[in-house]
């Protein structure tokens, strides 16, 4: 049963600390998305990659967020320095890249910045 995995599942940190979230997409999927879910804003697209190349990161605060795909089996989302307003659930999703194709979501990382 192929699934998107994300680590850690929960992260509590203090303001100013660096946070790194990791995602392993489904094997063979060439498109990876990062979303953020908050009560106020709902689900927002932060960034996405195709074949490991970043295609759109317009949803990300560039001064503190960065997203990378070091290889086809790993995507990372880093926040440095973290702020309380970054507290949210961060989801990774993967897909086959076709515009009509569904995305498969991981379980999310719940981030709390104190």
């Amino acid at each position, binding site marked *: 049963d192929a699934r998107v995995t994300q680590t850690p599942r929960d992260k509590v940190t203090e303001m100013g600390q660096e946070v790194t979230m990791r995602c392993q997409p489904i094997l063979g999927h060439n498109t990876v998305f990062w979303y953020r879910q908050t009560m106020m804003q709902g689900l927002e697209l932060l960034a996405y990659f195709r074949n490991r190349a970043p295609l759109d990161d317009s949803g990300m605060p560039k001064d503190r967020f960065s997203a990378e795909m070091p290889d086809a089996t790993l995507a990372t989302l880093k926040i440095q320095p973290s702020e309380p307003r970054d507290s949210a659930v961060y989801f990774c999703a993967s897909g086959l890249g076709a*515009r009509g194709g569904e995305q498969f*979501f991981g379980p999310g990382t719940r981030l709390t910045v104190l």
Partner: protein
Amino acid sequence: AQSVAQPEDQVNVAEGNPLTVKCTYSVSGNPYLFWYVQYPNRGLQFLLKYITGDNLVKGSYGFEAEFNKSQTSFHLKKPSALVSDSALYFCAVRDNGGGADGLTFGKGTHLIIQP
């Protein structure tokens, strides 16, 4: 720009009754439409999608949705609700033309099925 509206924050239905969760959308071109379900502390699970063709789409767990182009709607339906259907439901859209590949989601609708 594309957008999705889910006008109801919460829908309450008695078990065994039909349910409808509403969704309307706005895109510049033609839409690809999706429904996802989220259970507490879980990621989103894909239910169904409309790409082209038949306006009535059938998906997982007995759910279906009807695409109505004139009303720009894609309401989710089920003929007989189960208590286990209680969850948070998201409608999402993507333009089938240019633009980003990411989905634009609605705010979500809490579906509560009462025994």
